[in-house]
């Protein structure tokens, strides 16, 4: 092959046959190179996940070694005494996300039903896009907005954080529910309407049961967002390492703790924060993986 390329450089004296051979040689080379380059890039995605987990474990190791499992249920977070227990951020994370889903899921499903069953065709696209734009607004904007418009009324509390999260998660739940609702075969719905069902009965007895797995997948995806949301929550939750009985008292979440305290931390303190990050990643990983598996099931159903 090297000979061919050399004679190619000499130029015009090449016969047509030789030119063809050299072209095929170059083709074969670029083919192989391109294939390998894309393959490496694809592997890189897997490596990225491995690198994230590995570097968090390495960074968190001093804290893991020192506190062991107690880190997970310790309630005390004392920087001066170097005692770190993650219970209050874990509680805050789960509680804010849970309340947010409680608000966002019924509303999101309602909007999805509206968009697929009720909405005049002309409005369907604009409203759908408007809801999706809500998803595109960066979380820092929700944070500053919540800080200046919600906290004067509600204060910096767990409930305020849950409210902001609900608004943020709403578009995700809506968009995915709408997409899975539109996979319901028209024949099924028409048959139910033909039997005299009302729109609500069709939604309740045909659309939702048919798409149940997909809807749960969408909800889990929204939950994954809510669990890891940082900037919006940090502004409004009050950042207090306490577990209060009232929802109207300041709290903290894993991500808010990291965002607030990371820069001032060092040594074992910083390592504890990295362990919090690892914990958050593990939680969201399982939630998101479950969501994907469910959504894959509905995709397969729609494809079949």
């Amino acid at each position, binding site marked *: 092959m090297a000979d061919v390329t050399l004679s190619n450089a000499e130029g015009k004296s090449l016969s047509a046959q030789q030119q063809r051979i050299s072209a095929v040689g170059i083709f074969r080379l670029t083919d192989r190179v391109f294939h390998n380059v894309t393959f490496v890039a694809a592997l890189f*995605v897997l490596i990225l996940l491995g690198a994230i987990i590995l570097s968090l474990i390495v960074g968190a190791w001093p804290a893991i070694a020192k506190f062991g499992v107690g880190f997970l249920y310790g309630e005390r977070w004392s920087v001066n005494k170097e005692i770190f227990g993650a219970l209050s951020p874990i509680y805050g994370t789960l509680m804010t996300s849970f309340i947010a889903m409680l608000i966002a899921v019924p509303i999101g499903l*309602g909007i999805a039903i509206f968009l697929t069953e009720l909405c005049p065709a002309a409005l369907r696209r604009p409203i759908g896009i408007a809801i999706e734009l809500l998803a595109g*607004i960066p*979380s820092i904007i929700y944070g500053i907005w919540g800080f200046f418009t919600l906290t004067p009324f509600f204060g910096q509390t767990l409930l305020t954080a849950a409210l902001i999260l609900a608004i943020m998660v709403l578009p995700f739940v809506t968009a995915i529910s709408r997409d899975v609702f539109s996979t319901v075969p028209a024949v099924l719905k028409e048959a139910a309407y033909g039997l005299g069902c009302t729109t*609500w009965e069709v939604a309740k007895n045909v659309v939702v049961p048919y798409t149940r797995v997909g809807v749960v997948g969408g909800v889990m995806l929204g939950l994954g967002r809510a669990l890891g949301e940082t900037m919006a929550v940090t502004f409004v939750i009050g950042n207090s390492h306490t577990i209060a009985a009232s929802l109207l008292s300041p709290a903290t979440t894993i991500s808010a703790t990291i965002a607030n305290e990371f820069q001032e931390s060092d040594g074992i303190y910083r390592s504890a924060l990295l362990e919090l990050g690892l914990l958050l990643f593990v939680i969201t990983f399982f939630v*998101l993986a479950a969501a994907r598996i469910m959504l894959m099931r509905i995709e397969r159903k729609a494809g079949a």
Partner: protein
Amino acid sequence: MASYASRRAANRIMMGLCWAATLFGLAWLALILITLFWNGFAGINLDVFTHDTPGPNTEGGGLRNAIVGSLIMTALGVGIGTPIGILAGTYMAEYGRYSRLTFYIRFVNDILLSAPSIIIGLFIYAALITEGIEHRIVGYSAIAGALALAVIVIPVVVRTTEDMLLLVPNPLREAASALGLPRSHVVLKIAYKAARAGLITGVLLAVARAAGETAPLLFTVQSDQFFSLDLTKQMANLPVVINNFAGKGYANWQQLAWTGALIITLAVLTLSIAARVLSAQRTQK
């Protein structure tokens, strides 16, 4: 079975609630945008683009250093992430379409796509920066921030690239192969061309995503109040400036935070609307 009248009443109530839910959702969007415009526009003037961020107890000031910093880091992050994302998506759609590996990569990519962005910041910190150890690779710097943004960008681009290449009809590829074009040329000259609008949409969405991200930059670039173009040093950027300025008591800081928020939102919304228009054009063809 309930009577016809009660079934109709139930239907009315539930459908009314669906209407209400939609209005509720749209009301939040309107409320957020109105507050943002109301507070943000008040502060838009030439100073915002010509002056740097002010220190504490300093009058006036602008956002020049933060805007430039954000542009540089977003461009760099997208510049690093896009080629990797497109190539990976190409492998999944063109070479390994039915392989087990592609299935796993798609699964992992979807998880990375929704992974909390603060984790990406911690990852870059833990992998590259970590203070107090000898073999640290880079310090708090614009390049570290750009790498964090690249990690955000990659899954977005992988996803859209794969989806868009899967939409390219196979007969196009077969026709090209029948003419004797090698596989790499089929991908580069035919498939990419057919999916071009979709690929650009993906990149626009990635830019929109990266431009607004705050959490990944918190621990990778320490924003300061100086104008800098040095990639190996700290660099101001809009999201972190908003984060630092909003909660403080200075009136001009709060105003700048609102103005910065407006600028980011306008940029992000413009990008995502542009992406949508582009993909709508493609589907109409």
